[in-house]
């Protein structure tokens, strides 16, 4: 690839990304009221997206091979337990991550 071709390739990645980020705001401008159905979708999606993101993060875990997803499962249980107990974001995130790192480095 020449330098110009590289620049175009990177620009295409940027354009694609920004299209997905700006499109909803361009279609539903703040000057006109948002249609009821879209407003509902927005509120419902806010709750739905986090479950989707968790699965997205775990998409490459193979439950049939290797560690069978056990380190992920254990660490997620630790995060949930810590969060139900103290409800401090940083503690839950740090606790779960340290637990996961110990598991994949030392145990599995």
């Amino acid at each position: 690839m020449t330098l110009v071709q590289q620049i175009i390739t990177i620009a295409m990645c940027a354009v694609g990304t920004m299209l997905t980020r700006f499109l909803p705001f361009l279609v539903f401008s703040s000057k006109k009221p948002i249609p009821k159905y879209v407003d509902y979708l927005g509120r419902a999606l806010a709750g739905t997206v986090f479950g989707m993101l968790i699965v997205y993060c775990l998409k490459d875990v193979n439950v049939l091979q290797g560690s069978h997803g056990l380190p992920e499962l254990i660490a997620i249980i630790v995060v949930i337990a810590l969060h139900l107990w103290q409800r401090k974001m940083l503690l839950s995130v740090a606790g779960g991550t340290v637990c996961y790192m110990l598991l994949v480095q030392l145990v599995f």
Partner: protein
Amino acid sequence: MKQQKTVILSALKAAFPHTIPIMASFLFLGMTYGIYMNVSGFSFVYPMIMSVVIFGGSLEFVAVQMLLSTFAPLQTLIMSILIQARHLFYGLAMLDKYKNTGAKKPFLIFGLCDESFSINCSVDIPNGIDKGWFMLWVTWLNQLYWFTGSTLGGLLGSFINFNTEGLEFVMTAMFVAIFVDRWKKEHHHYTSLIGVIISAVCLVIFGAESFMLPTMACILCVLTVFRKPIEKSLEGSGDEK
């Protein structure tokens, strides 16, 4: 003028603690990405610029492969849209919160990655803190972390060697904790359950490479078909408007 400065600084002070998990994750992942570009034969200028203009982790990793193969701009554009399609949902979910943010709005939308969305969507901003500035700081801090990590990785390349295996879990942990937060606030768990179950089923059926689009389509269908009960359940929940 002085007052404006206090408003901006207190928003920064309120926003920073929420971004600490992301700082850990982005510095680490950004470095990994920068190193990957470095060992693939690119100067640090590449990850530095790409971290700013694209600002989307998974696509930037894929882009390295694109840069190394033959020139195919249209295919690159389509791939980018497919990989980043989930951002459409973030935009829809943030239409209301990003309303009335004035000149900050384009910056908020430009930096609307998974992590900035997660925080700005789920944090209850304390009273007395300017909401626009809070959300803008979250967005900018996250971009700064990613930029710093990517550039450092590109500069240092394969010289660094540290045992951080498993640190990438910090992102999963944050999403799980936010999920638990939302779960505790909801009276009904329809929306949370829909997200997990549909994504998991689609992952099993379509595989890790191509499950996101079917997932998004199915979520939209289910939310539309069951609008009545779901809309009713949202009204009861604590943090929904």
